[in-house]
């Protein structure tokens, strides 16, 4: 009598086990990401200051957020930073990938070097760059010591130019990584197509312009999505390199959110800025993921 009962229990266990072991991960993601995001959204509609309060104030925080000059500066900065960062990174990444694809000597040794910056903490690289870009001790001083007396490089101290220092450091950090994405794309291109085009008399330039680059479309798309979410999330590099300064000239939405929530005790406004960032990322990501999903099915 007991034998069939245990067997039955076992079969049922084997049916249920996969779902049971999946449940914790599912629950954790649901609560930790979506639950907490929902809480942030809720806070953005309340008059929370230093601590959360649950008095509903409607869209008040959003109205006040968009009236703040500080927020406009942050948006302007992220727009400049993100567009330069994405374009320059993609261009350099593509160039590096084309170089590495020419069967050069020591590729196996070079590839990890190109990738290294991305593997390092933004805090550490930001600190190194801060040092290098500082006029008193970095590039400017070295150039002057080497005899170029009139050399000046004070971007990091300049309200209008400091943002480009962040672009430089960020490009340095991610270009090699973008290169890896493009390289994988290049290696996936069928040689026969290229040979056929060459036989037809296509020049190198035409080959890349007309065949290779169009065929890299998926790699461009992934690079765009990954770079844009990195740009919007950029926090540590800014903190390490400029701390948002000089003045507010390199303030970004992420640093804005942090300072409003924790130093200025305007939790409601901070939450509403976080919601705007979330929505921006979702607007970029959802169509991409949707396309990916459709492709894989």
């Amino acid at each position, binding site marked *: 009598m007991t034998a069939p009962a245990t067997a039955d229990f*076992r079969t049922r266990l*084997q049916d249920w*086990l*996969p779902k049971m072991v*999946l449940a914790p*991960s*599912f629950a954790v993601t649901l609560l930790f*990401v979506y639950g907490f995001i929902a*809480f*942030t959204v809720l806070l953005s509609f309340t008059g929370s200051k230093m601590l*959360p309060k649950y008095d509903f104030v409607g869209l008040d925080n959003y109205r006040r957020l968009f009236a703040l000059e500080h927020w406009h500066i942050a948006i302007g900065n992220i727009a400049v930073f993100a567009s330069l960062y994405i374009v320059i990174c993609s261009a350099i990444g593509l160039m*590096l990938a084309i*170089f590495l694809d*020419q069967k050069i*000597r020591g590729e196996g040794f070079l590839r*990890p*070097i*190109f*990738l290294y*910056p*991305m*593997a*390092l*903490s*933004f*805090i*550490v*690289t930001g*600190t*190194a760059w801060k040092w*290098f870009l500082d006029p008193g*001790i970095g590039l400017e001083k*070295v150039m002057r*010591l080497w005899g170029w007396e009139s050399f000046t490089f004070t971007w990091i101290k300049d309200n209008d130019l400091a943002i480009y220092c962040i672009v430089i450091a960020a490009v*340095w950090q991610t*270009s090699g*990584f973008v290169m*890896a994405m493009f390289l994988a794309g290049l290696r996936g291109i069928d*040689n026969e197509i*290229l040979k056929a085009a060459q036989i037809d008399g296509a020049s190198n330039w035409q080959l890349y312009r007309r065949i290779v680059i169009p065929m890299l479309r*998926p790699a461009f798309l*992934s690079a765009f999505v*990954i770079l844009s*979410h990195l740009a919007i999330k950029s*926090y*540590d590099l800014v903190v*390490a390199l400029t*701390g948002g300064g000089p003045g507010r000239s390199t303030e970004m*939405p*992420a640093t804005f*959110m*942090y300072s409003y*929530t924790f130093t200025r005790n305007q*939790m409601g406004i901070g939450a509403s800025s*976080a*919601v705007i*960032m979330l929505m921006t*990322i979702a607007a970029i990501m959802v169509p991409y993921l949707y396309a*990916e*999903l459709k492709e894989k099915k």
Partner: protein
Amino acid sequence: MSRAITPQAKAINTGLAWSVALLIAFPILWTVLTSFKPEPQAVASPPIFLGFDWTIQNYIDVQDQRAYFRYFVNSVVISIGSTLLGLIIAIPAAWSMAFVPGARTKDLLMWMLSTKMMPAVGVLVPIYLIFIRLGLLDTRIGLTVVLMLINLPIIIWMLYTYFKEIPADILEAARMDGAGLREEILYVLTPMAVPGIASTVLLNIILAWNESFWTINLTTVNAAPLTAFIAGFSSPQGLFYAKLSAASTMAIAPILIMGWFSQKQLVRGLTFGAVK
């Protein structure tokens, strides 16, 4: 793709690629070299490239002045702890998705992975409030749990892709030989899954080691890892470049070593599978 390339073109390309590599590696190389210089030579003019008096004094000084080793231990504990904790939750989940897939497994996986792209500021406030309530601010355990949570989607997804590569025929054969679920997992799957798990561990330790948003915002002294230490150390504009370099070198050395062995996983993990 590969085509016929003339030797001259190849030499030029190689030269260019190596110059770019040098340019990219330079800041890292310089930091490492500076960490072995005596403080005056670190800011000497003109800069000294290799011919300085090599010393490990900076490492000793940083330890004496800032009890730096504690931060290092925190980094190790937190990154390894969060990885192991993540594996406990992720291995069963990945196993289930790879070997007993349902109709919506792919969707679920994509959904989980998509959360990794969300900006951390979106969940900072609730986590901060919970940490205050539970007294978890500036504790290793709190930080370990948060880092596990943020990296969990990557762990699950990486494990899933590795588990997927295990041929289903082998499981079939084991079942034919009368292996139950327990034997199947213990004697067939585990040995085949170990390399994939090892790669996942490596990538996740790198990610956790580098994490700075959460470490800066949730710790002050007791649980602060190296990233928070460097963020704090760099703010007073003192002239301790050799010492700062020593701290930075310690923070990046494990990554430089691990990174060399795990470039493929790094690309795979950081691109969310866009590159295989």
